[in-house]
């Protein structure tokens, strides 16, 4: 029986979310930014599973399944977009894709 306090479990999910956020803010390579978003999704799902265990309800795991579906769609669309960006700009640097920015 797992007796780790629930605060520490939530803290682990928070640390993983924070690592994903740091990666999203620091890295400029689009593949790495997408990977960081994956880490953030995963830690959010972990919070649902922890809460579902805490209250002994299946709803947390159901929510994780929905997060899984949303993540799969998001990854497919984002990777298709990344392929298009690479074909147009020949780079994956997010800062170089700024054709919509004002010129001032």
């Amino acid at each position, binding site marked *: 029986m*797992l007796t780790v306090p629930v605060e520490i479990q939530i803290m682990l999910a928070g640390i993983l979310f924070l690592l994903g956020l740091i990666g999203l803010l620091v890295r400029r390579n689009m593949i790495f930014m997408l990977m960081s978003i994956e880490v953030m999704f995963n830690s959010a799902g972990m919070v649902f599973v922890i809460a579902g265990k805490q209250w002994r309800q299946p709803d947390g795991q159901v929510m994780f399944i929905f997060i899984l579906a949303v993540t799969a769609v998001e990854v497919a669309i984002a990777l298709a977009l990344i392929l298009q960006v690479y074909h147009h700009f020949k780079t994956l640097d997010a800062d170089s894709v700024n054709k919509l920015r004002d010129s001032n």
Partner: protein
Amino acid sequence: MNTFFYIAASIAIISTIMAISGRNAIHSLLFLILSLLSVSVIFYLLDAPFIAALEVIIYAGAIMVLFIFVTMMLNIGMEGRTEKKWLRPGMWIIPSLLAAVLLADFILAITHVPVSPSVDQVILPKQVGISLFSTYLLAVEIAAILLMAGVIGAYHLGSQKKKITHRFLIKN
């Protein structure tokens, strides 16, 4: 039992740090897979074996394969033939050590922990399925529509349109 949790949690944090700070995209993806596997072990310890299996099958199995395909298609992070560099122990000793520790952690957690001291405390996949298809039936249908939109969108975005330009308009 708690020790297994802390080991898996530290492996998750370490491999996530390595994943977001790596230079080579493929190495970072493999570290990310390791992070997802350790999160799966944590789910197993949290009395959610069904979610642990889904995490391995869908996250580490399907989504990460998509990532790796795209990364290899774009051929980033591989300047020249670097196989000799990859075969040095310094390149693979850390991830294989982390993966071995995670495997030992999981095997010990399976064998040394009594299976579910009281069955009504563990949420079985049956309960999850019943809840999924009764209470959340509308959400399941919305997720189906979302997946359909994802398929169409990915097909539309992934198709290479042939650019037809008039020959007088082509700039050198």
